[in-house]
């Protein structure tokens, strides 16, 4: 049994999963072309509040304000995906950089960074977000930065632990012996091997980011009405549940579909890399 054979056959069986790619692809297209495909503008009242499905011009009914729900979901994809994605990316960039640096420097630098992060970590998330947003004003940029920073504290912990583990590997010692720079060691030697846990974290965090954003929006400090946002739509239409309206469920389903697809994609990636690693161990 040769190594080459096993790893090739494993890769062949592990083709990229179609369903999550299709889901994410469709949402991406919708986000780009929302103004052209949406039947109504997102803030126009077109019917009575909580109108039923498939009546007249409103395919998915109307929301608590009588606005077309389908149009709002389509428009909402722009806000939600861009906000959640940007916040998540910012969280990863800050968390990974600081976490890697702490792991690499060790000693007192690590000690100081870690204690600050522990302090921030112990702060209630929501309160922290509200303080930031009310202090700096509520714009989308501030929202992204705030959520990104809050989530980066969680990324930091994962990134630091992963980097600690990877920095103890022999090939890192050999890179030091070649006189490689700190940046090379962290981003060329350590980062590629740290992807699997960091990407899982990214995928899992996505739904958390959407939720946090919607919570802030619900309190009126996040996405400003009449702009549509899935999280906010779920919350603002909650009252409809009592009268049997599906209005809060539809944006929730949209959030679910994106979270599901992201996690499926991450799972696939993880399985693929785990196979690589386990075949290394056998070798």
């Amino acid at each position, binding site marked *: 049994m040769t190594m*080459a054979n*096993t790893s090739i056959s494993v890769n062949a069986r592990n083709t990229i999963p179609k369903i999550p790619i299709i889901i994410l692809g469709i949402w991406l297209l919708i986000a780009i072309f929302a103004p052209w495909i949406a039947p109504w503008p997102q803030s126009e009242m077109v019917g009575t509040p909580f109108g039923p499905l498939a009546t007249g011009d409103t395919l998915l009914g109307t929301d608590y304000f009588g606005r077309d729900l389908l149009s709002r979901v389509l428009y909402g994809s722009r806000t939600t995906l861009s906000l959640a994605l940007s916040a998540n990316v910012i969280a990863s960039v800050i968390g990974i950089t600081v976490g890697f640096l702490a792991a690499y420097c060790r000693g007192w630098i690590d000690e100081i960074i870690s204690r600050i992060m522990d302090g921030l970590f112990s702060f209630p998330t929501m309160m922290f977000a509200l303080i930031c947003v009310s202090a700096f004003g509520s714009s989308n940029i501030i929202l992204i930065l705030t959520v990104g920073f809050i989530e980066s504290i969680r990324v930091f912990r994962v990134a630091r632990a992963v980097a600690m583990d990877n920095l103890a590997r022999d090939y890192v010692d*050999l890179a*030091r*012996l*070649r*006189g490689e720079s700190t940046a090379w060691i962290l981003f060329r030697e350590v980062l*590629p091997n740290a992807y699997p846990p960091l990407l899982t974290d990214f995928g899992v965090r996505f739904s958390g980011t959407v939720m946090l954003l919607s919570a802030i929006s619900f309190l009126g400090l996040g996405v400003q009405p009449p702009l549509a946002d899935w999280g906010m739509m779920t919350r603002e239409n909650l009252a409809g549940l009592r009268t049997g309206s599906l209005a809060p469920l539809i944006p929730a389903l949209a959030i679910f579909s994106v979270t599901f697809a992201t996690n499926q994609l991450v799972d696939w990636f993880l399985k693929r890399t785990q196979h690589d690693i386990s075949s290394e161990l056998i070798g």
Partner: protein
Amino acid sequence: MSGIIRFEHLDVVASDSRVKLVDDFNLEVHESEVVALIGESGAGKSTIGLSALGYVRAGCRFARGRIILGEDELITLSRNQVRNLRGSRVAYVAQSAATAFNPSIRIINQLVEASLTHGVMDKKDATARALQLAADMALPEPERLVTRYPHELSGGQLQRLMTVMALMCKPSLLVLDEPTTAIDVTTQLGVLSSLKRIIGKERVACLYISHDLAVVAQMADRIIVLRNGKMVEAGATAQIIRAPEALYSRELIAAASPQKLPRVQPDSDDEPPVLELHNVDASYGHGAGLALRGVSMTLGAGRCAAIIGESGSGKSTLARVITGLMPSLRGEIRFKGEPLKGRVESRPKRELQSIQLVLQHPDLALNPRVTIGDAIARPLELFRRMKGRSRDDEVTALLELVGLPAEIARRYPSQLSGGQKQRINLARALAARPDLIICDEVTSALDTIVGSQVMELLSALRQRTGVSCIFITHDISKAAAIADQIYVMNQGEVVERGAPDQLLQSPRHPYTRELLRAVPELRTNWLEDRVVEANA
């Protein structure tokens, strides 16, 4: 006389790839007989050993054949029936006793557990038997020892206690899976002799799994040579050792006793020494004690020095101190007459280039996400400022130098075997055109035959490039095969140095003598001779 266990046409396959891990294996083990299964990694010896307990690893299954233990056919038994057999009629001793014991339960409770579970005896009898067996295994003060926790005992003691645990229920068959591979040679001698004595006393049949021919020669009545799941040769121990018939057995025996590799004559002896150490001390931190204690050595240009010692002797620490991965505490290190800076970060590029390190585990030394070609090209770019075509050509040339085809450059480490990876590590070290190459246990993670090929390659490379070499190993025969000078290390100190012949023939330091005495020789009755010597 009927056999204790009988394998008939046994096939074990990996479920997902239909690869046969064990292919048509037949064997009958008789009462109080020790049968050794030897072979390199992937030979299927552990799979056979585990199958004697009716067990296959996850992802594998019995595809064909029968295993008959006494009256029972193991493969057809239910899970509960098999569980009743394990520990009571057939028991297993694993390679690493240190990880096999539960760290949070006292030894004695782990020893008696199986006999209580199987209802073989009550706690009083079980404790008495455990203490008796522990005394038979030559453990000091068994009554006190068994009340401790695993972390309070040494590796050798745990390995002995593991054997005690296996023998508790008076099994008819004992499966010993590399029982002394994880322990040092000086400890191994004691474990082997008490193991041999207790096997005779308890009259238990054994399947002894090992890759070490010299050890097997002491323990076994019969030897089965395995390769890729197939039986290559079977015969009495003396016959296999002295007159192996199959080509593969002959290769194995040859690789187990390394021949002297050709000496490399340096151009002239007038050149200043490449490396000098004067009274170097090193420590892993405040209050950790000294890992190196007053180490001095001199390495002439083009020469090869071997450092031998057991685990914890400080031999790998020495490599880390010379390379600057770990700064020394005191003392002076000179490279070509110039003092070397302590930390690798403060050394100039020229010095980094001149000293290259090759490490023990070929998988860990290569970044799994970097292709072979990029790994070898990096030192070329850094140290020799090569780019584009000329760099790629040099990568090909280096691959050729270590006997690998050029297309391997596009592969990732996971697609290579251990021996190939170690060749890549040598090629990468040579890419810098170093003056000194430090090899830290470069063959100990490899199979015997592959390891001896890497040794030959290293010798040939020294001949072609004239590079000086520090060869760190625990294996005295390998050190003697390649080195001009041997340094013996014990507890951070160099206790003796000398030319290989002089050191092997007339060792002066007591520790060197003990070490040499403990290295198993590839002949029968070596162990008996040692025991007689010790008693005299």
